[in-house]
């Protein structure tokens, strides 16, 4: 069902970016972040900014969505910019009480802020265009080499995807139990800290009971289908690179090279 995948803020649309291989998107996001910290001049910023706007347009994402994604880091962003602005030594261009603003500070704050904004933009494009399940299977494949060092990559990926799958279900369940208790007069919204903590008992107990029940059922269902871990296991939808992935990788390499060599 649709509402089961709303977690991880997936935004459904038909676009090239949505169809890209999850590995491409994961590695591409890393590459983009590296590029962000390579450029030193305004031209590099323009290049990265242009790139991200281009990708957003390709992915058919409403700008509104990306801006909404910025909200949680707004505070951090302001903080970092103010610190950079006030604490960078250099040529003083303004002074007020104990604060002094330097030319270098303005630059540092501006670049830091823009980098951070683009970093969040870039990674939210990945989560907006990739379902959590695809993302985990992409990561499983990218980190597959760690198996040599006996890291249980498959098991970890499986755990993550099950957890992701269950979060919306448990949220739904929380909502339902909360309403059922409210129908019996429970009050989750008013009162002091202790009263509110106590009010959670009728919510948490049924929730835990149901989480354990679901976990047990799932484990049984998986065993009944002979699941025994990653060894020799094939995928129903194996990840496959297409031409578009090659193009994506090439443009990312272009971006990095551009960021390094731009004056």
């Amino acid at each position, binding site marked *: 069902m*649709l509402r089961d995948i*709303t977690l991880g803020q997936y*935004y459904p649309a038909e676009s090239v970016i949505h169809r890209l291989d999850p590995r491409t998107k994961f590695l591409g996001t890393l590459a983009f972040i590296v590029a962000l910290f390579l450029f030193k001049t305004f031209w590099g910023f323009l290049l990265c900014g242009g790139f991200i706007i281009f990708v957003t347009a390709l992915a058919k994402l409403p700008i509104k969505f990306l801006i909404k994604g910025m909200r949680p880091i707004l505070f951090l962003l302001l903080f970092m910019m103010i610190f950079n602005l006030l604490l960078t030594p250099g040529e003083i261009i303004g002074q007020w009480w104990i604060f002094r603003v330097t030319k270098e500070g303005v630059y540092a704050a501006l670049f830091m802020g823009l980098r951070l904004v683009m970093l969040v933009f870039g990674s939210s494009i990945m989560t907006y265009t990739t379902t959590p399940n695809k993302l985990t299977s992409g990561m499983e494949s990218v980190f597959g080499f760690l198996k040599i060092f006996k890291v249980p990559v498959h098991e970890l990926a499986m755990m993550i995807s099950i957890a992701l799958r269950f979060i919306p279900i448990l949220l739904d369940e929380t909502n*339902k139990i909360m309403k*059922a208790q409210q*129908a019996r*007069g429970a*009050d989750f919204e008013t009162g002091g800290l202790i009263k509110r903590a106590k009010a959670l008992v009728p919510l948490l107990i*049924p929730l835990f009971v149901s989480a354990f029940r679901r976990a047990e059922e799932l484990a049984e269902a998986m065993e009944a289908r002979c699941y025994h871990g990653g060894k020799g296991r094939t995928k129903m939808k194996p990840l496959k690179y297409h031409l578009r992935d090659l193009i994506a990788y090439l443009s990312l390499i272009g971006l990095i090279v551009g960021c390094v060599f731009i004056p």
Partner: protein
Amino acid sequence: MSLILDKISYYYGKGTAFETAAVKNITLSIPDGEFIGLIGHTGSGKSTLIQHMNGLIKPESGNIYFNGADIYDKDFKLRDLRRKVGLVFQYPEHQLFETTVIKDVLFGPNNMGFTKLEAEVAAYDALKAVGIGEDLIDASPLELSGGQKRRVAIAGVLACNPEILILDEPTAGLDPAGRTEILNLLKKIHEEKKITIILVSHSMEDVARYAERIIVIDNGEIYFDDEPRKVFEHEDELKKMGLEIPQCTQLVRKLKKCGFDVDEDCLTVEETLASIKECFGIN
């Protein structure tokens, strides 16, 4: 005492890519003492609709009046509404949390501001009404069978002494005997306590036997709201909504078509049997 829904609409996931209209412009009046069946296919919006009736879901547009007062007025106390309009959710046994049955049933009355004595009287009354014997009163709710849990959960709502009792598919997942028992129990409560009952279901069979009024909802809209016999005249339309009229009614209608002189309006097995016996002259 009456509950009126006035042109209410509700959307899930408002403002996201997943927006779905679950209730569309529904107007409904629930007078005192009726036994109402609310019927609709899976996903038709039944559960969403009934949650409006005790203020758990606030409609996007439209008003809800309880005894003439708008329930979203500033000085209206939602808790009073929730005491008077009891709502038993789908699979209510999942909400049990206390260590003993009686404590769990007491949860509602205690929240609603009953005195200790009132609460206990109400709880014992409710447990007796749903047929939970004294031997189970101190058992852990988690140790009961599915059907027993369901009864305890219903008792938990009944103990608040509601004037309107709404039950969301109370018979889902029970065996035939358990179904009949729960439904008979509702009928008994309805007759003895004179409370309004709204029974949500997707089985026409269940509803036909007990309800005096049937509301058919599909895709978030009300299509029929009438007494059972009248609603069942629309067999074809109901079929399109994925609903079947009771099998006995289908049977007598087929017999009638074949030229037998039976009563077309039979709703229950007993009525059907009597009518067929009469037609064939058997005693």
